[in-house]
């Protein structure tokens, strides 16, 4: 019923007017629209769910993309004091099986390569890198990375082909915070509550349905540290040279092993 009404409205009003209306958050009566049924509000606001799903489908279905993220993250001292540090993350992704992540931050840098055959991690502050065979597709590789090697590239949620499927089942509440600016872009803001994290996402209404910003609050950790990413330079038609996905290491760097999670226990 709602969907039919929506289509009727879309044809009656110009699409841009409605978009403007949504963005401006004004309340306007829609004559002829059925009154919303009164009942308990849904645990996840309709728009929060819808726009998260659309953004996830847009990013997840892309054959390739690059983006940049400016990150802040908290380090918690044993006393409970939080210190905030910054980093920047550059991601290049090509489906099905290529990924490169460059991380440069206050506390150190990392390079991560995945060429469809293996993953390689390098901390440029050390003369060591490690490499491990990996499945042929990004999703399977990411699924293996965390349980077996105990890390995954930050913002890995956005590297899956189905980001929505990866996160939605844990959401307990989700609500709409309206439209807010992120670096001059007007982005629709949604907040979600999970058992162990709260998170907030700002989504660009278009033409690219990409996240503008993401904040994760780790509620179950002492002092509730936050991780925040402001996105820029989303490019879905990048020209990425194939060697980008192959580890490039300075001369003299030695290969060491990953200490697998099983070995660490």
């Amino acid at each position, binding site marked *: 019923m709602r969907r039919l009404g*929506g*289509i009727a*409205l879309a044809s009656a*009003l110009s699409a841009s007017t*409605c978009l403007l*209306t949504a963005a401006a*958050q004004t*309340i306007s009566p829609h004559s002829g*629209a059925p*009154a*919303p049924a009164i009942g308990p509000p849904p645990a996840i*606001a*309709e*728009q929060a769910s819808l726009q998260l799903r*659309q953004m996830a489908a*847009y990013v997840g279905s892309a*054959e390739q993309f690059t983006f940049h993220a400016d*990150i802040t*993250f*908290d*380090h*918690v*001292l*044993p*006393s*409970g004091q939080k210190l905030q540090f910054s980093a920047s993350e550059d991601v290049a992704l090509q489906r099905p099986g290529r990924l490169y992540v460059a*991380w440069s*931050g*206050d*506390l*150190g840098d*990392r390079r991560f390569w995945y060429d469809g055959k293996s993953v390689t*991690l390098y*901390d440029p502050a*050390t003369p*060591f890198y*490690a490499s491990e065979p990996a499945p042929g597709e990004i999703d399977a590789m990411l699924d293996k990375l965390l349980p077996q*090697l105990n*890390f*995954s*590239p930050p*913002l*890995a*949620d956005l590297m899956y082909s189905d980001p929505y499927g990866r996160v939605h089942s*844990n959401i307990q509440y989700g609500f*709409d915070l*309206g439209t807010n600016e992120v670096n001059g872009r007007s982005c629709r803001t949604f907040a979600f509550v999970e*058992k162990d*994290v709260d*998170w907030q996402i700002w989504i660009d*209404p*278009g033409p690219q349905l990409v996240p503008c910003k993401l904040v*994760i609050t780790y*509620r179950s*950790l*002492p002092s509730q540290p936050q991780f925040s990413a402001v996105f820029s330079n989303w490019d879905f*038609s990048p020209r990425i040279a194939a060697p980008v996905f192959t580890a490039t290491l300075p001369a003299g760097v*030695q290969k*060491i092993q990953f*200490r697998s999670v099983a070995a660490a226990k």
Partner: protein
Amino acid sequence: MAIRKQMSRRRTFTLTLLAGIAAVCLAGGIERAAAFRGGFGGFHGGGFGGFGGFHSGGFNGFHSGSFAGGGSRFGDGGGFDRSTDAGFGRDGYGSIRSAGNFSDHADTFRQSHPETQHDADQFQQSHLNDRQNVSQLQQNRSNEANTLQQNRTNEANTLQQNRDREANYLQYNRVNTYNNYAGSWGGYYSGLGFGAGMAIGATLAVLPAAAMAISVAGSSYYYANGVYYAPQGGQYAVVPPPQGAVVNRPPPSCSTVYVSGTAKLDCGGAFYQSVPQGYQVIPPPVGATVTTLPNGAVDENIKGTTYFTFGGAYYQPFYSGSSVIYEVVAKPA
């Protein structure tokens, strides 16, 4: 071709979005959204301006380019020590889907850092209060009833917390000092190869005033501030920490390492364990992992594998999570 496909896909999504927004106009979603904004009037309040000066200076030394640059800079080294992984994704940090990982780790952390339990509980409590519309009166009554108990707990925790803060503060300052002066103060961390700026084998005519006499397996030594001295021809020679020695106070700048669930102290590559009389020098415990190598560790390639040797121990580098650690291993055959 690929670009055209991309563009057409974008159009599709744009249309989908417009249809979606149109639907919400009808369904009253905007009204709900507006109501939420109203309720969050104070949400965006400022008040953070005071932090602007926080980053002034003091942090410049982090990129000391030290060989073991991946090491913990804050003396914690636990699962949440973002300084060891540079924030890069250990335990899935920076992703939403892996949030469950932090549940388990939080428990482990609380066990090893009981002082934070209280804080965490407090936060949890206020969070629930914020979110749930439970009867405030009931809550207040409970709070009042709990206050005495909480105060007691607070008091009990205060000493421990202060101690931790102090220790941490010292450690923090030392790390900064170390990073800033890594070139000239290279030996500061190491209680084994160097002590108070002196190499093992250096001799002194007079012992430091704080030196105390200890006896280890029938031999006499003197100990002061992490450095061991043995009488030698009327003088005192700096010697490596004699295994089995028990001292009342560990050297400065130790970090805790866990071996098979037992805490040991790693004091610049010299390992100590707590005993009733004080702290005892023990052989480097196989299985201990450290995030920084002792100063003076020498790399050695044995059958194609890189090791570092120091104080009789072999350290093997690994990537653990996204950071390099060094594990004490048995002497490679």
